[in-house]
Each structure stands twice: as C-alpha cells, then as structure tokens.
C-alpha cells in the first residue's frame, strides 16, 4: 500500500465531506418551514420572527452564513441550537458515544453469530442444519425491528428482570451499566444484521468452495477446518466487509427506531428532531458527523480489502 494511495483516499474523503457540508447547508435552506415557527410558536408577530432571524443570523446572505458556519466547524464549533441553546458540538459529543457503542456492539454480535453460522451452513449445504439456518435468517429478516425490541424488553426486562428496559448510562459513569443498558438495543439491531450477513457470507463461501484452489487444497488432504478457515473464509469476506462498512455508517444515524424504543440519547433521534423542528445548526452538525464516520469507516474498509485480497493491493 503506497503513501500516494493513502493520500489520494484521504483527499477524496475530505472532498466528500466538503460536498456533504455544502449540500446539507443548501438543503436546509430549501426545505419548507422555519425554525422561528417552532421556537416562537403560533402567535409570533412578524417583528418577533424578524428579530429571531436577525439574532440567529438567518437574515444574512446564504454564502455569508455558510462561510461563518464552515469556518466555525473547522475550529470545532458547530454552532448553537436555537431551540435549546445547547452548543451543537457538546450535544454531538454526548450523543455520539451511545450511537457508536450501540453500533459497535450490534456489529460485533451480528458478526459473532453470522460468520461461523454462514461458514458452517455453506459447508453443510442442503442438509437439515443449513435449511434450519436459512429459515431462521428469513424469519429474522421478516420480523420488524420494533416487534423484536418489544419482545426482548418483555422477556428480559419485564419477565426475567435481568436487564433494564430503557435508558442509557454513560461509559464514564459505570461501564458495566453502560453495557447492560446497550445490550437489548444492540441485540435488536444485531438480529436483523446477522440475518443479512449470514446470507451474504454463505453465498460467498459457497462460491469460493467451488473454486479450483479449494478443490486442490482438499485434494492435498487438508482437514475441512483448514480448508474453510485458511482457504475459503478470507476471500469470501470481501462482500461482507463492504456491507459491514456501509451498515456501520448507516446505523450511526439511522437507528432511530431502536433509539426511541429504548430511550437512548443517540444521533438518529437528535437528527430526526432537528429535521422536524428545522433546527439547521443541529441538522448540519449531525449530518456532517455521520458523514465523517461513514467516510472514515469506508476508508478503513477500502484499506482492509488490500489486506484480505493481496491481488487488489497489487492491482493499484
């Protein structure tokens, strides 16, 4: 992997982020609705609305507003929510932690279930175990997330009383409690993810098992375990790695249902609230942060390709 390649990818990532910043800002201006309505309410006079626009800078030219916001972002200042008066950077810091931890846990659980199951099912293709795993994955794919969440809460919080039903404890307060509060939401997300990952990886492993070099490995007398782990799994992982990267970026801001059901103060709910109230400072900051995570994760995924398949690395 050359330094030039790395620099190119980082440059591309920064360009994407700049485009996201401009697009988000522009979208915020063309969306119908006005934050002044949400803040000042039904009976605001035109004078009060004008004063509000002046106070929040919304009456300045769009280019000036963008530049002021963008230079602030470069200094770590994402502005202030006109609705709550809270600094957006502070709010993002508070909300990024539960979202990141939730997605990390969910991805870890999903991969821990999907990878061994997919390899095993592919190896046992057509047998009862494979059919059972396929059926289970279809069931999980067809089950709505909210139904899984409500069921998990009922079983583990209400009936067994082993886990909290809702809420979040910050990591710096009590790491064990953080894990306990995130367990049910992470499992809710993970079940759906695991089903997708299982199907993608199983298909990849089946395809690889038909390759000549795998047949050659078998002919050399390697054990099934050696064939699967050393010769089959690694080349089959490429589509899965792509999917994991995409899902990671998506779930950082897209786990709104799970966040709301489990009362987690995450980025998804924060962004949704900002859209509903037209709180543009919050919306821009959240979208930019999510885009940043998206770009970073997918940069990491690109780099991982080269590790998983040296042919990709050498082709560059």
């Amino acid at each position, binding site marked *: 992997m050359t330094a030039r390649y790395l620099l190119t990818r980082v440059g591309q990532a920064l360009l994407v982020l700049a485009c996201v910043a401009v697009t988000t800002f522009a979208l915020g201006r063309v969306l*119908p*609705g*006005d934050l002044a*309505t*949400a*803040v*000042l*309410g*039904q*009976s*605001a006079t035109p004078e*009060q609305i004008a004063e509000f626009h002046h106070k929040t800078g919304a009456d300045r030219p769009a280019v000036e507003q963008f530049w002021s916001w963008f230079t602030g972002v470069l200094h770590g200042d994402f502005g202030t*929510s006109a*609705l*709550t*008066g*809270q600094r957006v950077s502070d*709010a993002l810091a*508070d*909300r990024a932690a539960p979202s990141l931890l939730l997605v990390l846990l969910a991805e870890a659980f999903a991969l821990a279930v999907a990878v061994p199951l997919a390899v095993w099912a592919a190896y046992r293709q057509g047998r009862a175990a494979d059919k059972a795993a396929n059926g289970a994955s279809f069931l999980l794919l067809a089950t709505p997330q909210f139904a899984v*969440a*409500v069921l998990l*809460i*009922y079983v583990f*919080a*209400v009936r067994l*009383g082993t886990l*909290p*039903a*809702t*809420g*979040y404890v910050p990591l710096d307060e009590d790491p064990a409690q953080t894990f306990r509060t995130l367990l049910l939401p992470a499992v809710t997300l993970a079940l759906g993810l695991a089903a997708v990952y299982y199907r993608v990886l199983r298909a990849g492993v089946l395809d690889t098992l038909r390759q000549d070099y795998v047949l050659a490995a078998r002919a050399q007398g390697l054990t099934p375990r050696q064939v699967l782990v050393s010769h089959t799994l690694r080349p089959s992982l490429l589509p899965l790695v792509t999917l994991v990267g995409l899902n990671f970026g998506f779930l950082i801001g897209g786990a709104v249902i799970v966040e*709301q*059901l*489990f*009362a987690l*103060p995450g980025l998804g*709910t*924060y962004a949704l*609230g900002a859209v*509903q*109230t*037209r709180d543009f400072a919050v919306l821009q900051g959240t979208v930019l942060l999510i885009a940043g995570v998206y770009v970073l994760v997918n940069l990491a995924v690109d780099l991982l390709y080269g590790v998983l398949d040296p042919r990709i690395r050498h082709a560059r």
Partner: protein
Amino acid sequence: MPFDVQTLDPIAPNFASSMDYTAARGVMDPLFDVDAQGALVPQLALGAVASDGNRTFTVQLRDGVKFSDGTDFDAAAVIAHYQEIKDKKTCLGCAPRLVGLVSAITAKDPHTVVFALSAPWAEFPEVGLTGIAGLIPSPTAKKAAGDAFGRNPVGTGAFKLAEIAPGDHVTLVRNETSWLADRTYPDKVVLKVMLDTQTAVQSVQAGTIDVMVSSQPNQAQQAKSAGLQVQLNRGLAPDGIIMNLNRPGLDDVRVRRALSMAIDRQAINKVAYNGDTQPTTAFLAEDDPEQQGIGVPGYDPDKARQLLAEYGKPVRLELNTLQGSNYIAATQLIQQQWKAVGVETTIKVNTAVGIMQDVLQRNYDTSFSPAFMATTTVDALEVAFSSTGRLNLGGYVNKQNDELFGQLGAATDSAAALPIARQILTNVSNDVPSIPVVRKTGMFAASAKVHLPAPDGYRVDAFTLTDLWLTR
C-alpha cells in the same frame, strides 16, 4: 415523559411541553396554585385582595422565602418578573390580557405588590397569578444568565436543577433551603425523555422507571393489564377538529354543523380511546357555570345529511392528523363517519411541527391534532374565537362575539360576566368554528410503591414533584 425538554424559562416562547413545565415547576414556585374546584391555593403569595371595582389587586407575599441562589424572594422579584412578561411579550402560556390590562406594578412594601389594571378583570388572580405566568424566577439569576436562563433556572422551588440534557433527561435535586424542604420527599428526580409510551409502560413494569406520563390514554389498558396503578387525568379542555373557514364548504355554517352532527363521539371514545376519555361537545368543562347546557350539535346523522342536502354541493376535505398517536385511530373513525353522511375526506398524517406550519400558513382544511386550541377559560376562547384572536386559526368572524368579548372585559364581577360568557359560548357553539370531540385526557402509570400525585391544574400530563414519593 413523552416530550423533549427545550427550555425551563417559563416566559421563553419555546417553553411548551409538559416536560418543560414539570421541571420548571419543580425549580420555581407560582404565586398561587388552583385546586380542582378552581379555588386559589396560596404558594409564594398568601392572598390577593381586589379593590377599585376589580381594577386593583393587592397581593401579599410570603415572608422569609429565599431563591436557591441565596437572594431574597420579595416584591422586587415579582415586579421584575411581570414587567418582563409585559416588555418581552413572548410568554405564550400567559393570558394575553396580562400584557394588555396590567398597567402598573408597584411595591407597597417589600412583601406587598399592587397590580393596577386599565380595566376591570375579576379573574386576574386565577388567570394572572397562577400557572406559567405565576412562576417566579430569581431576578439576579435571570439577569446573570440572560438568554441562557432556560438552561440555568433558579427559583424558590423544592428542587434545584442538577443537569439538563436535551433529548435525554433533566435531573433535579432537592433544594435544602426551600421553604418547602420539610414536605419534599424525593432527594433526586430524573425526568427522562421516553418518546415511545409502550416501552415506557414496560419500563415501569420492569422497574427501570418509577412513573410514566402520557398526554393520551392510549396505553392505559396495557398498564392496567400489567397490574400497574393507572391514573386517568381528564382535563378542562377538549380535543377536537379545527377548520379552515375559508375553504369551500367550510365557509357555510350548515356544513360545519353537519360535520359535528356526523361524529359519533361515543364510538370514538370506545374504539379509539378504549373508553378512557369522555365524549364532549363543549368548549369548556361541561360543569363550568359558563358552559352548562351549551355545546356544538351532537350526533344526528340524519340531520347532518339533511343539512348537507340543503347546502347542495359535494364536500371534499383533507383531514390532517398527528403521526404515532391516538389521533390517527380517531381520525380514521371520523373519516368513516363523515363518509356515511356524504362527506369525502383524505387523511394526511404529519408531524406536530408540520401540522402547525400547515395551520399557520392556512394550508389545511381540517385538522384533528394538538393544533386544536385548548379552551379552558372564556379568556382562552377570546384568543381562539374573537376575529382578531391570535390563535383564531380558522378565520372565524362573529361581530356580535367581538362586541361581547369587549363587554366581558369590562364586566365588574363574575356575576356580571356570566351571562355574557354564556352568550359567547352559545354563539360559538351555533357557528361551530371548530368541533370539540373528546375531553383531553392524559395518564400516569406507576408501580404500587409510588404515590401518584394529582395532575397539575393546567395540564393532564404534568404534576407537582413535591407530591411524589416512594413507599419504602
């Protein structure tokens, strides 16, 4: 709490939700509370005496009370607060007359305030010195914090703000120097934002939270089945349908009356609310002397068809409603009931902000949603139904009512005001500018160890935190 927190400054324009109110009410005390019978209950004020034909009110304040920042609660604090309400004009929860009629606020002595009004207003103490307007902040803290007071509130209340995390929670801790300290039981209260009421009920069952609050009774049956204590709070105001009277069909009173007559409120209560609310045709509480015996036309589908036939043109309407709420089930029933008398409707499901924007821009036909003006007093009716009322969202005009509202303002006492108020309500009920459907109903659910407080006099989904305790 099924709401986010926005600000704890009661006179900020975005002070709106029951979360804001419950937290602010814990930190700040009002001059008076109002009990279930509408009588004043002394809090920071001990009494209010009217004179000069209800044009002057002398309010005696409690002595020896301090704000949690150590400064004294006195007449200067009350004057500063009410002067700010008048000057800023941003307090949406304050009666408009408070800004319009209060002409001077002076201190007779450090613990006596005199309010001079430009016209008689018999109900000034009940309306002006209670609720949101009555919550007194520390003027020192307010001056220091400026616009940030909503995140750093200071009052005389039983609690102090420990932390405010928009989107997640507000933490209040016991204020040991409060005048209420010896009757405050919780050491700490965390008001947690929990938007999904179903998982909130499950959280109470699991013991993750102690009490859940909802502004609608949609989870009452689930909570009862789970063995929880459930308290249904019927409010003074109705929930109902607002109408844009500039739209074809809705500009004709026969159509509006027909729409009201087509609604089977009993069925809506039974099906959409599991029987947990109360059907109503009244704008105020049914037993209110001003309201008794008056209401918009009740269920009579035959008469509705007759009125629509007299109108003679097809009526097609859009009916807006709020996503994820009891309103949707009720709206679907209303759609069927209107169809049964020949009115075609399409339902538009929207967010709360989307609904408000449509309504404010007059970009709607009808809306069964929180946009319905909560009419708890005749003063609130003026805001909603006088032709220049700031919340007259449907364009309703009745010149006789405009004159009557003026006469009502000049009435020297309650006895003189009563017939005027009843005439206004009769006119409004005949004109049907909006349609009350059910009484606004909220609920609290808690496990057996919790003492459930009574709801606040003003909201079906808020309570006073000093009334809350756990049995150990």
